[in-house]
């Protein structure tokens, strides 16, 4: 029996030789940092002696009482939700718009992907220059359009600073979503659409009844991949606002970086990072379950 034979062979070969390089690399380079950070979170760096001192749970207690941390967590969540929502809606709209063979659309899709190759650190500088209230083009254009008053310092106004950073974020990553969604749209079967259009369905109905359900897994994967990176956002805030004004754009990653490198609080920095890791893991796993992603 051919099938049984195949099964036997398939069972007899183990995946582990294939997975060995990956597993080994990931264990060495991720498990060690994880253990190191857990260990570090129970210690604190003592500048005087240049050494680490065991401090028990005090870093964790400090975390619980640290209003700066909670506000950073809030900012991170806000950033995460706003960016993800806009990137998905905008990305889907643009993907639908560009998914056609019209004059120059091939070139447009290529041009759109250019935003991805600019390092976020440089993109942050770009938008910093463009948003300068005195010399920048963005305030100028917004003023011409009558949206913002002349010379409004976007990045230095508490209520607008996060929006200013988000402009850079959304500009850079929406095209990533477009690429993914475009790939999904291209892979959709044609038959259901033909049937629907014979039934006289409108474009919107087709999108809602056919495209969205069939694209749900693609969207789920996009949310997962981008969401993980969004929660760790560092480059844009680091370059554009350094967390300001006040604490209105402090994210957890930036706060951890600052505690670690500027204030030599290695233990507390590790505590912040671990907390962030746990939150991402919980959210990601919940999402994988709810969205029924099976690998």
């Amino acid at each position, binding site marked *: 029996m051919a099938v049984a034979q195949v099964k036997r062979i398939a069972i007899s*070969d183990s*995946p582990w030789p294939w*997975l060995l*390089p*990956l597993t080994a*690399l990931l264990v060495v*380079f*991720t498990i060690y*940092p*994880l253990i*190191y*950070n857990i260990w570090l979170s129970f210690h604190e760096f003592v500048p005087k002696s240049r050494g680490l001192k065991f401090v028990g749970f005090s870093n964790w207690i400090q975390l619980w009482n640290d209003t700066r941390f909670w506000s950073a967590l809030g900012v991170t969540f806000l950033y995460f939700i706003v960016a993800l929502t806009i990137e998905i809606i905008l990305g889907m709209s643009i993907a639908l*718009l*560009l998914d056609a063979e*019209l004059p120059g*659309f091939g070139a*447009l*899709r*290529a041009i759109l992907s*250019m*935003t991805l*190759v*600019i*390092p*976020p*650190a440089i993109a942050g500088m*770009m938008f910093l*220059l*463009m948003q300068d209230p*005195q*010399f*920048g*083009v963005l305030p*100028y254009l917004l003023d011409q359009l009558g949206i913002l008053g002349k010379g409004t310092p976007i990045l230095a106004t508490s209520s607008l600073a996060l929006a200013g950073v988000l402009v850079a974020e959304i*500009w850079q990553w929406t095209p990533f979503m477009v*690429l993914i969604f*475009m*790939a*999904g749209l291209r*892979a*959709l079967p044609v038959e259901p*659409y033909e049937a629907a*259009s014979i039934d006289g369905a409108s474009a919107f109905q087709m999108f809602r009844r056919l495209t969205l359900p069939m694209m749900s*897994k693609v969207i789920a994967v996009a949310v997962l991949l981008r969401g993980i990176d969004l*929660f*760790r956002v*560092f*480059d844009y805030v680091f370059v554009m606002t350094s967390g300001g004004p006040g604490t209105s754009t402090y994210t957890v*990653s930036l706060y*951890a*970086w600052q505690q670690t490198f500027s204030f030599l609080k290695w233990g507390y*920095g590790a505590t*912040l*990072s*671990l907390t*962030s*890791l746990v939150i991402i*893991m919980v959210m*990601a796993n919940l999402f994988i379950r709810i969205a029924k992603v099976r*690998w």
Partner: protein
Amino acid sequence: MQQSAFARTLRTIAGWCVVGIFFFPIYFWTSVAFRDAKDIFNWPPIFVDFSPTVQNFEQVFGISLGFGPPAAVTPGGGNFYMGPRLWDSIVVASLSTVLAIVVATLAAYALSRMQFRGRHEYVNWVLSTRMMPPVAVAIPMFFIFKQFSLLDTYIGVILIHGLMNLPLAVLLLKSFFDDIPVEIDESALLDGASRWTIFRRIVLPMAKGGIAASAVLCFIFSWTEFLFVLTLTQTGLKTVPVVSSTFVTSIGTAWGNMAALGAAAIVPAFIVILLVQRHLVRGLTMGSLKQ
């Protein structure tokens, strides 16, 4: 679906406008690279009508482009000479991509073809290695690298960038392998071919496009990475994102030079994208359309 000519025109215009908005910052930034400070900081901002200069590029790449005044630039002179750094970026991004793709292809094949207990959890674990904030990885890495003399070396940076890209590469490649019918493997197994032969002779060639697409993404993520390179290099090498902060000096930021480097750095990565654009669009579904 047939759209009316009017709708098609409207859609064309809308497409161009939307992409135009996204392209505008790139245009503006590139134009900054061709300006001197007076034209960068003007009010109202100048959009097209500036007096172009290639001086920023000449300083950054230590070459004379032969416009206007005779060569006033010597290679190797000045802090802003970044030619070798662009090369560093290309080397790191290319080789780390090779590393990630080789390791990930092997793993992805097994994950796609072999049923074993805990496969779903294993993939989740692989994905979770991307969840650690980079700053928390950078410090222990610094110590490991110092221990193995990897600090400030190409091998070190290539290694860390390869690792950083593994989760993404594994997920992507697995989806490509999933798209290739299992029956092909099965009939080859029946003919007595080994897994390795099947992988090398049959599956790899069929997944070429997908591998190219995954490679591009790895390349881009390495090309744009900042914190690891900052922490793990000193003077031996540096990539473009890190070195661009050199232009932030104590007496102001050299915006023109920074823009020149930034604009030049778009070119190599964009070429890579263009080469595989077709596969990129097809490949990013990550197999998730298969139920």
